[in-house]
């Protein structure tokens, strides 16, 4: 029986679990651990963290998705940071998008002095998260709990937290987050 238990590989399932229990309108932000069977190295860990967000109401548009995330990125990284959205594909959102932020290391220029900026691979942009408008197929599953796809609309997003910390603080090894080395932890005091 316990063969049916799977460690979640992303936080997206919290969306449907919430909608099964709570009627719209909803706005949720849920951080959590996720697990993937990746052998641990400097940029991979079998356990890491994501934050998932979901908003469903009768008035949510694609512009609201962009506005909400732009607002959040400015709050997180400073008001001069810019956001840029480009098309992508996720099975549970339509339209789907990837959001980039202007590189907070080089400011978007792609250069650090005379050297190329490595975190943004000289493009001046860093891919931060995946997002999109909730696919009507998803609402169909919770239609009986008030999520009529003809009446409500919503957006969802998910971001990898460890990666954002690595990019923002220049950490060179994701393993450092899970070793408890006091010399590492105290740098963030």
């Amino acid at each position, binding site marked *: 029986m316990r063969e049916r*238990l799977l460690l979640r590989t992303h936080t997206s399932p919290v969306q449907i679990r919430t909608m099964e229990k709570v009627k719209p309108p909803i706005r949720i932000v849920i951080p959590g651990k996720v697990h993937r069977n990746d052998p641990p190295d400097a940029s991979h860990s079998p356990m890491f963290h994501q934050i998932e967000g979901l908003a469903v109401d009768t008035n949510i548009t694609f512009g609201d998705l962009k506005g909400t995330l732009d607002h959040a990125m400015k709050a997180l990284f400073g008001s001069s940071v810019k956001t840029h959205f480009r098309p992508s594909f996720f099975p549970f959102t339509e339209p789907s998008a990837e959001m980039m932020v202007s590189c907070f290391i080089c400011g978007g220029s792609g250069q650090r002095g005379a050297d190329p900026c490595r975190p943004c691979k000289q493009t001046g942009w860093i891919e931060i998260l995946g997002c999109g408008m909730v696919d009507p197929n998803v609402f169909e599953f919770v239609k009986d709990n008030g999520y009529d796809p003809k009446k409500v609309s919503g957006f969802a997003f998910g971001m990898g937290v460890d990666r954002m910390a690595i990019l923002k603080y220049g950490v060179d090894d994701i393993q450092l987050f899970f070793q408890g080395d006091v010399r590492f932890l105290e740098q963030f005091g």
Partner: protein
Amino acid sequence: MKLSAQWIRDFVDLTVDNDRLAGDLTSIGIAVEGIGGSGPDTVFEAEIGTNRPDAMNHYGVAREASAIYDVPLKPIQPKLPAASAAKAVSSEARGGTTEQAAEKVPFVTSGAKARGDKKAVIAALKRCATQNQSFSAACEVVPFPVEIEDPQGCARFTARVLRNVTVKPSPERIAHRLALLDQRLINNAVDATNYTLWEIGKPTHVFDLDLLEGGKIIVRRARNGETLKTLDGVERKLTSEDLVVADGHRPVGLAGTMGGFDTMITEKTRNILIESASWDPATVRAMSRRHGLHTDASHRFERGADFESTVLSCDRVAELILESGGGELVGGVVDVIARKLDQAPVELRMSEVRRILGGGLDVSQVARILWKLGFELLPGAGEDSEFTVRIPSWRLDVEREIDLIEEIARLHGYDKFPNTLPAFAGSVVEPPEARKDEKLRTSLLALGYNEAVSLTFISHQDAEQFSDAPVVELANPQSEEASVMRTSLVPGMLNMLAYNLNRGIGDVRLFEAGAVFHAEGTKTAEPKQICLGATGSALVPGVHQPARPLSFYDLKGDVETLIENFQHDVLKYEASAADYYHPGRSARILLDGAVVAQFGQVHPDVASARKFRQDVFLAELYLDRLYRHGLREIRYQPLPKYPAVERDFSFIFAESVVFETIQQVVAGLRPGELRSFVPAETFRGGSIPAGKYSLLLRATFQSSERTLRDDEVAEWSAQIIQALQDLGGTLRAS
């Protein structure tokens, strides 16, 4: 995947340079991650989403470019020479006599209409009925007959026959383009199929016609026991689950996946059969998995290749082969349709476009975008729909109105939609335990602990040692150290303490807050806990203060500080804890009767197993039980107006008399205005007999209404002294 910029420009006249083209393609969803080469050899490294098989080729990307820049997309129109008449081609097939061939091959010979050949006429009529052809088409010369026995697996099979072709290396133009894409060059015939694949995205295959036996192609399920040696040289056993292209005798290709070895094109090949078919995606995917064969062809068929492009792709391959290898086209195209694939048109409402995307798009913009992408627009059939949209055969990813809305958004440009914030009349609701989590976290940080996070997995051995709970096993662990979900936070904490100690960091105070996992029937229970780990100095040694190593009482004080945040009536200690704690230096805390924490020094056996060379302390808080208590609410207590009076009592007690008992006895007296009664000092050894200890107790008396008189205080002190003597205490001084 690699794409040649120059090749894309074959189909669209663009005024922008390659850098601009790459950027613009990326912003509509064809992500160009890198650009290599220069000038005519510029190559785009593109990431095409798995939902866009139509864009996994140059023509598909050119179509996207034509939509971006609003320029015409040039059609692909292969120029083919006039075909020569097909005559008993298959009688040249090895392994069959002319009579046998004529018997097995029911095609009409020479001429536009059947002439008196009754058997042939009946066969032609049958073909009209089952293969959706007109009678004259059915009577046309069929250079090579094809039968589809499995319409579910194969909706359409198109073929062309070439004769007298010279097989040799591809011409420079073809070879160069394929080389830019890192494609292996084989010969002009095979390269032509590869070129067509990368040009229009349609996989095709070429057979040496003379190596096909029995003079026909049958698309069918394999029979159990049949084998096929595929082009990679691997001999494969087939089952009835496999869909194959077969000739009259045996399988010659794994449908949509890989052709057969024995019928491949070699320098000896003179006559060629070109195949272009429409395969069921699920069937190809299953075969690809079953045989462990992932090819460029199967990759596309799994995602759905264009049903309508089979004839075009056959013709394009034929054109390329004839250009380089000479030879002639034999007969017309053989096009057998077993099942027509059609996508239902979709109604599109501007009201829905606005509901999902927001305002700002008008009807003409929407129409232009869809039309440029190849969608056909008709007036809407519904009451509120502006358009009925016909989906082109190459867009299998578009089925619903919302899919059209995504097309509109991405071509319009995501960044062009203004950033807005939705109106919301609700309020922020914290999760129910947020305040308690926050309180504990800030208390711990203030006490000097750093928060740490360890991995969720531990070993079987650790699970057994540090918890009684049933474990949840991992089916696919990475190592024995990480083979079960953690049942306790202790192993992770001990690992982190060891990690620091091994690197010469002697002063460590960490806490971890997280869930542990207990198996419960078919599910898991995930109670939250906090674990503290501490070792080293209580006070960091410095110029003005000496070191003082951590003791059990430091940890006790920290744990008490945390617990005191919660409302409770009775806080009680029990001087025992789990067996991984030092028996004399550990305790449990009970709040109103339930164990909410245990803490203490780590057991010497555990410490030596982990090679700890200094004392290590742990504490565990069980939040499921602790959180049954609310946080202590602050309520103002009026400040005292009248002075307090202190009295000290110095006693000697037997070791068995613990302070808790003394405190309870004194509290039970209710001596007047006693505000506090605390231990001030303890002492052992010296003149104190063994088995006893000296305890200095300090009482504080204070009234909120008046100054206390000496005689009252003396009376209460006497009561206290009497009570303590009744406990067996000996008064030393007062």
